[in-house]
């Protein structure tokens, strides 16, 4: 069963094409990531699926409901937006109550559910405090709790850990994973953090300039890179290059004092290489194994690094804005 089917989905802002004829199918129970730099079209795609934006052309179904049926789609999804969307002056509980009423939950059911979701994100003790007093991580957790209140079938998370410190980020990851693995909730998130996509997602779509340029599991994507690189330090790199003739070696690159060997499985290749070299009397000083990261995959597909610099600036702007918002 598909949770989401996207067909030629396109969004233009004037002449700028933010999302360019995307096709995609996401399975039920999947933890799916849209990975790409800022401005790649991730959030726009997510906003169209969440009925917050109307596509210029193309179509999509969410839980088998066409996204033109806005209210039906809205009832069946939970959304956590990129920017905070809590009312600072209300308490945590009041924010959740507002949500429950907007989704027409019955009163007794609502209070029960509020307790449940607060417990899930560990905010029971803070429920009576105004959001003003919450930290960034607590706000995010409450937003996730709120998104879950009405038992959605799909949870959309737009940059769930943007601007959070590493420790808080870990915590949020744990909650996301728990929801997906324990409750089987379909989760679709956007991120420009490589490690986040790698750590969390079952499958990833890399989006750049409004197009999906790669779609696979993180593992398979890294395998596209040809596997592990063994960086072998030796003075006799010429000689080593000549004697290493295993058929499982995919690529060899010779440098001064080094030989880089690309193999599918670095761990099991090392003993064979060491054995062959000692039989040939070549002295090896060190072997260093490099596993390709998603970052390498990204560079492979887009020809450049993810615009981290730009992202950092955006993060700073956000935290500045938040500071200012607090007065």
């Amino acid at each position, binding site marked *: 069963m598909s949770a989401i089917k996207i067909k030629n989905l396109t969004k233009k802002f004037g002449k700028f094409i933010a999302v360019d004829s995307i096709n995609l199918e996401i399975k039920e129970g999947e933890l799916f990531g849209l990975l790409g730099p800022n401005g790649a079209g991730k959030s726009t795609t997510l906003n169209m699926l969440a009925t917050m934006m109307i596509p210029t052309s193309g179509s999509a179904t969410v839980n088998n409901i066409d996204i033109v049926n806005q209210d039906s789609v809205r009832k069946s999804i939970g959304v956590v*937006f990129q920017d*905070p969307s809590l009312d600072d002056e209300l308490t945590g509980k009041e924010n959740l109550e507002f949500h429950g009423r907007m989704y027409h939950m019955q009163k007794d059911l609502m209070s029960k559910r509020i307790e449940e979701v607060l417990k899930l994100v560990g905010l029971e003790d803070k429920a009576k405090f105004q959001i003003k007093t919450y930290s960034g991580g607590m706000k995010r957790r409450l937003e996730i709790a709120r998104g879950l209140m009405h038992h959605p079938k799909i949870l959309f998370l737009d940059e769930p850990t943007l601007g959070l410190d590493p420790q808080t980020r870990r915590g949020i990851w744990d909650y996301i994973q728990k929801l997906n693995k324990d409750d089987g909730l379909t989760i679709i998130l956007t991120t420009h953090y490589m490690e986040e996509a790698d750590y969390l997602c079952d499958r990833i779509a890399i989006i750049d300039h409004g197009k999906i340029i790669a779609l696979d599991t993180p593992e398979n994507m890294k395998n596209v890179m040809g596997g592990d690189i063994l960086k072998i330090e030796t003075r006799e790199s010429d000689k080593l290059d000549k004697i290493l003739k295993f058929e499982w070696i995919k690529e060899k690159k010779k440098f001064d004092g080094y030989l880089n060997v690309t193999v599918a499985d670095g761990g099991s290749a090392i003993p064979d290489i060491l054995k062959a070299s000692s039989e040939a009397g070549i002295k090896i000083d060190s072997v260093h194994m490099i596993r390709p990261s998603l970052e390498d995959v990204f560079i492979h597909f887009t020809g450049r690094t993810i615009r981290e610099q730009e992202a950092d600036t955006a993060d700073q702007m956000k935290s500045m804005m938040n500071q200012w918002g607090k007065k």
Partner: protein
Amino acid sequence: MFQDIYTVWLREMVKFVRARSRIISSLAMPFIWLFILGFGFSSSINIPGLPYIGFLAPGIIGMIILFTSIFSGISVIYDRQFGFMKEILVAPVSRSSIVLGKTFGGATIATINGLIVLGISSALGFIEFGIGTFIAIPFMILIAISFVAMGLIIASRMKSMEGFQMIMSFLVMPIFLLSGALFPLNNVPDAMRAISYLDPLSYGIDGIRGSLVGITNTGLIIDFLVLLGISICLISIGTLMFKKSTQL
């Protein structure tokens, strides 16, 4: 639909009650106007059969409602800026419910503010307490609804609160000054009087003043009908503009 309007309205109420210091500071201004102008002009402006402060008090009631309601409408910009609007928009509720909830929320607050000024003015003896006091309330409610809706319309075209000062100077202050809140409109130049007939607040103030102290230009029935028409128009335009501004 009704439940959704109530939900949006309730949030406005909770926030209003919570911000007690804001209530006090927003009520200080009308009394400063009332006392200083009321006593300052008491000997220079001659209203037949009424001390000037009795003439002024209905105007000041209209003023506090105007300011509170238009600000309350424009403050939807804050909801947009601080993100809460997204939470409202992604919920399965109609856009009209959101506009009506916002409008009634802001109008309730503005009317309460007006009632406080009305109550204190009566207690101090500037105006008499009687049946007229209750007749004034529908006019107060209609003023409030009209101007919250006007605020919402302005907010749908504004990106931030930066333009607020300009709105105050070029829209809110002229609406207030031309409404006859501070001086009788029957002795002003014709051109000015003509403009004041285009001012929705004129009918509101005339209605409140007619109910409270019995001085009216256009008559209570016309005041009521004109205000009712204006408020329905403004809510309809407000709903359309809100829908348009949220339909990306």
